[in-house]
């Protein structure tokens, strides 16, 4: 059975073997009908009061060693960013396109990240983005490529990520996040700073991704 394989043959061979193993012709019509009735008895939505989601989200971030600052309104973002940068003695942050200028405090450098190469990003002290949705249960930020959220490498190469989350973007559970996402965009779930437990199961913050993660949770 195992003669020399010609390129292109493999596709037909694999599909034929699958069909033979399953013992039927490809039942394309049946797949969607069967899919529609699969049991899904887990929580699709939770009637979680917003205050409870917020406190859970803050707990999770704290566990991940990610810092979180609460901001009373969008007007307070600039001052909050200035405070974070001052505390870190940081001269500024790269910003992704679409970040409103009103968010940026005076007296710091905010170069635009989009034209920068990976090597140039590597020399930036940090990156500022917003997100698509945040999940309280898992302390996750979800970013999708585009305005305010940048490209995937923007939140990866710099050593510090500062992320703006509006309270209206916070959902309680993982299934609640999905309807808010565009399945066609490159998507990254970020849950805490990069980490590893490969050495004796000790969770160590910071391997290749940003070693510091800051969240500004903004009331809206």
């Amino acid at each position, binding site marked *: 059975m195992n003669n020399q394989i010609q390129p292109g043959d493999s596709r037909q061979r694999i599909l034929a073997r699958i069909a033979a*193993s399953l013992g039927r012709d490809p039942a394309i019509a049946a797949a969607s009908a069967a899919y529609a009735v699969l049991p899904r008895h887990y*929580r699709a939505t939770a009637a979680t009061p917003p205050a409870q989601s917020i406190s859970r989200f803050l707990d999770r971030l704290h566990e991940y060693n990610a810092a979180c600052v609460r901001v009373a309104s969008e007007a307070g973002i600039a001052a909050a960013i200035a405070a974070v940068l001052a505390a870190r003695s940081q001269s500024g942050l790269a910003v992704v396109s679409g970040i409103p200028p009103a968010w940026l405090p005076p007296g710091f450098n905010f170069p635009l990240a989009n034209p920068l190469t990976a*090597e140039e990003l590597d020399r930036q002290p940090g990156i500022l983005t917003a997100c698509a949705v945040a999940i309280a249960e898992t302390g996750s930020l979800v970013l999708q490529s585009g305005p305010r959220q940048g*490209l995937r490498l923007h939140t990866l190469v710099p050593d510090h990520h500062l992320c703006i989350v509006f309270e209206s973007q916070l959902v309680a559970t993982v299934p609640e996040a999905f309807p808010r996402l565009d399945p066609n965009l490159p998507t990254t779930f970020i849950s805490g700073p990069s980490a590893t437990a490969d050495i004796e199961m000790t969770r160590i913050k910071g*391997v*290749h991704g940003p070693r510091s993660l800051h969240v500004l949770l903004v009331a809206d």
Partner: protein
Amino acid sequence: MKPEANSSPWNRRDFPEAAREALAAEPLPTAPFEHSQTRRNVRHATDIIQAKRNAVVAELPEWQALRSAGAAIRAHTLEHLDHYLLEFEANCVRRGGHVHWAADAADARRLVLEILAPHAPREVIKIKTMTSEEIGLNACLEEHGIHPVETDLAELIIQLGHDRPSHFVVPALHKSRGQIRDLFASAMHRPELTDSPEELAAAARSYLRQKFLTTPVAISGANFLLADTGGVCIVESEGNGRMCLTLPDVLVTVVGIEKVLPCFQDLEVFLQTLPRSATGERMNPYNSIWSGTPAGDGPREFHVILLDNGRSPILADAESRQTLRCIRCAACLNACPVYHQTGGHAYESVYAGPIGAILTPQLHAMHDAQSLPYASSLCGACYEVCPVEINIPEVLIHLRSQVVQQQQSTLTGSLGLWNIAMKSAAFLMQDGGRLGAAVRLAQTAQAPLVSRNGFIEWMPGPLSGWTKTRDLPALPAESFRAWWRRTRSAQPATPAASEPHHE
């Protein structure tokens, strides 16, 4: 379809032989320290992951519902695998990706080399991938002058130590920090390194950073393929995966055909069950999902190699098909009392532990690794923790019967001692008269073997396998059947007479 033996870095000794070495009570002279150290490290790591996993699973009230949904989605996908693979292919291609199909390991290696050829890379960066290990990709790349750089911390430890992974989520869990320190110090020329995990992780960060920024080709596996969007999902912790997925010009993803899910939204189940089962976290630090070559974001050239390599025939057996539901969380390894004792290397297989014991022999059409279905006490801990409800004990028993049938079908197997012994036992036990005669014969024949304590401590020839590790109680002078005949045969044995009366 039997994949060629030399493609695998594994020796494929039988489990009992390899396990005996891993367990050696008197450490082998070759590496006396290594063995006891390895066992300590494996126990330490599996105990920690198990405890974390149990805690984060217990806090989700709908855990059972998530397991059932996950099992149903995976079972459904396998029943319509051809349909979903074609849908994935069409959507991935529509978004700029290239999809290739590899019937076996040789086919997959040839495809990787063909894809890499126009770029003539001297090095490629790699994300931890079990399919790469399965097809022996690293050795193949080296043969063709391409150096694969493993970027996952554990895989880097394995690569620098010329070692084999022993667990598919935490491949280097058999290494202690001291052993890792020594490896890094010599390979990275950093004699000043201490064994602090933070310092070792920082060393890996600076060692690999320049590689990430300059290497134009990356190779990965995948956790999930998404049929409805042509998407690929990769779940990781360190960020090395994201580096490989976004910075190079060319990305090649080698993934088993069974890894497809119908819809993007199905991730709402598996992104809850996989991290909790695999590392005991509510969510691992990074999940990446993308399809094809999105404009201006990530590699300009993206290839998916769909690897069969023995998977499609497994679909034919309705009972063992569930093996392919596996999402590689390794919870069954951490829960398994056998794995806990032996570690992963004793399985002599890319896929270790309970899932390896059922997957590996099936991938080899039951022609290889036949001892693995026996590498279990059938306690059921693996089934209990499985996030897609694979009934591993059921499949183990099913495969054991296949092994026996296969052995019986050959001349040497049917004339083998074990088969003759079992056939004889069946013959004796079918008939009371025959059994009684055999017992009487044994009562006489055992006399020279019985010790003063009433136990048989040594038996000759092949029977010594039993008495090597345990004593056998001697047969009593009077068998139960003889006793029954002597004491009861006179009276009719009515239920009323034989039941004890309570006053």
